[in-house]
């Protein structure tokens, strides 16, 4: 089956972010297709490469980046939600006059239209949130 995923909560603060990852991993292992993973609300914080979790804990951001590289996943961070919360790629940082960017490898920043399109294209859109 072709799935799209919506992640609405941030890493380390809410189970939704972990469960979304485990769902995607399990779906891929069973041979399903993940059309897109869209990060919204505090979920955009799953895409910051500046996270430094304790060494004996899981690295949620790195885990997404690695899974994206392995399976060519499309990880999309909502631009409006990202701007509010200080998540930038190089071009957004430049456009907004900021001196740094922090988006993790494998993630890209785009608009909410990508969420709607993910809902249209997939057979199931699964929401992970509160």
């Amino acid at each position, binding site marked *: 089956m072709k799935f799209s995923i*919506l992640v609405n909560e941030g890493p380390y603060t809410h189970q939704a972010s972990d469960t979304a990852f485990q769902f995607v991993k399990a779906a891929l292992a069973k041979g399903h297709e993940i059309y897109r993973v869209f990060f919204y609300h505090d979920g955009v914080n799953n895409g910051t490469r500046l996270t430094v979790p304790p060494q004996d804990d899981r690295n949620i951001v790195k885990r997404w980046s690695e899974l994206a590289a392995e399976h060519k996943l499309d990880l999309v961070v909502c631009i409006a939600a990202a701007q509010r919360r200080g998540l930038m790629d190089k071009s957004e940082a430049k456009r907004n006059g900021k001196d740094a960017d922090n988006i993790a490898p494998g993630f890209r920043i785009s608009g909410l*239209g990508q969420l709607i399109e993910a*809902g249209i294209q997939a057979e199931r859109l699964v*929401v992970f949130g509160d």
Partner: protein
Amino acid sequence: MTEESAGGVAKRFLYVNRRAPYGTIYALESLEVVLIGAAFEQDVSLAFLGDGVYQLTKGQDTKGLEVKNFSPTFRALEDYDVTKLYVEKEALEARGLTEADLVVPVEVVGAERMAEIMEAQDVILSF
């Protein structure tokens, strides 16, 4: 569950609003998705359950909170051809509200009918 439209196959999208308008950002960011999504010419409905019914109440004053009162935006939804707004009857009653307290015309439906509406959707986005 899909129907043909001018642009191809339209899917049924339901946005489920479960939270009070202020206190968290979910309600505001949900409305942002609805407005963007309207451009995709899908079959769009909105549902308001639980504290979500407060999003539609008249007379919201957010000055003291120093956040934007976004309730007028609901009145603009009609211009985006978003006209199917379902409000849970039980949620209104539990909060001492009636349809007259809301900023836009809605269809008040019982929980059972709401379940049927949800069952008929292709995509449900819950906020």
